[in-house]
């Protein structure tokens, strides 16, 4: 379902980092695990189309998103992936409803502050956010923010969901609960999820197929069920 074979050289001043990652997985739960700076985020950004590898191939759910040999590089907006940013990247000028409906609305204007398409209403209900639908992101708790970000990513029915350190910003108690929520969400929607984390507990509880990344390369893999 996912196949990644990419190379990228990153330079920051004198330092030079080589990403050279190859992996493939049929699991609907893939965890990329590694220390910070190992290249996990680069892999996720490359899959989403937010950063362009120097060369290689990226395939997701049978679709070729990037292929340097064939000159294929689908722009991020056409890849139909959901992306959960580490600190959620909720739009601070839009309320919860508008944030969730953002991707449903095409064109040059944001969704109306009061408009509520059926899909938005569904996710508001599903995540217990109906009460706060009119509130701005900075008025929400950490858990609510994450649910809004999840709803925003899922509302357009993406072909896969990419999660960047989804639990790092949460306190330990909430982290355990959100892990369970994500776990049941994946089972319910049966959507492929690819999660990157530096926390071994995330890998242990969520992972179906755990890939360990070190120094820009896949150093090991481990399959559970």
């Amino acid at each position: 379902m996912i196949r990644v074979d990419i190379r990228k050289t990153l330079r920051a001043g004198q330092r030079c980092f080589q990403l050279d990652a190859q992996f493939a997985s049929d699991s609907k739960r893939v965890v990329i695990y590694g220390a910070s700076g190992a290249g996990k985020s680069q892999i996720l950004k490359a899959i989403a189309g937010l950063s362009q590898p120097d060369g290689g191939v990226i395939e997701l759910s049978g679709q070729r998103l990037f292929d340097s040999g064939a000159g294929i590089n689908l722009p991020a907006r056409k890849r139909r992936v959901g992306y959960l940013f580490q600190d959620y990247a909720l739009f601070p000028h839009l309320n919860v409803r508008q944030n969730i409906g953002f991707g449903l609305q095409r064109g040059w204007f944001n969704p109306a502050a009061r408009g509520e398409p059926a899909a938005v209403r569904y996710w508001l209900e599903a995540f217990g956010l109906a009460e706060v639908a009119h509130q701005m992101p900075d008025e929400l708790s950490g858990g609510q923010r994450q649910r809004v970000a999840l709803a925003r990513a899922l509302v357009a029915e993406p072909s896969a969901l990419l999660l960047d350190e989804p639990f790092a910003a949460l306190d330990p108690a909430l982290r355990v609960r959100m892990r369970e929520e994500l776990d049941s969400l994946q089972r319910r929607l049966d959507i492929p999820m690819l999660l990157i984390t530096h926390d071994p507990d995330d890998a242990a509880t969520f992972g179906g197929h755990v890939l360990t990344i070190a120094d820009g390369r896949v150093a090991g893999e481990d399959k559970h069920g």
Partner: protein
Amino acid sequence: MDAALIALGLSLKVALWATAIDLVLGVAFGYLLARGRFPGRDMLDALLTLPMVMPPTVLGYYLLVLIGRNGPLGAWLHSTFGINLIFTWQGAVIAAAVVAFPLVLKGARSAFEAVDLQLEQAARVLGVSPIGVFLRVSLPLAWRGVLAGALLAFARSMGEFGATLMVAGSIPGKTQTLSIAVYEAVQAGQDDTANVLVLVTSITCVLVLVAATRLAPRRVEAA
């Protein structure tokens, strides 16, 4: 008093047009400089900021050379559209727009730079086109900074003297703006007129500055 009101009206007209032009160009170039990665970016930035440090009379001279009857742009405008900009209020608009441009540019650039890159990325992943990302995320989050810059540009345009005098001259009721009228009144020894003109100018500038400072701090809150 009538003359003062006419001069004020002309100054407001010139400043409004100049600010409108600067707003469009300042937002475009501010965004380009904040987000674009291309060779010559620093050169472009320096070039566009130049009007801030150059004497207005020098800018006025450049403009005369460029849009005067014999200038490359001026000759073309005259032969193609029959337009002459020298000694017209439209010429004053161009002079004021050039002088005040860096203020909008600086405000817009730093406002766009303050917008979290991840928010723009989030919008892209959600399927929004580049223009959509700009209009729905970047601009709404940066507009306070842009507007604060525009208000400063408006105030600067109101006070423009050197470049305007070079390009548009000092024709009462036609191109004689407030600041030029002050100079003329003092030169002619009309102290009463000068007093009125100075007072009108000062009040306008204070009002604009108050508006600008009210906008500026709330930008931080939105970010």
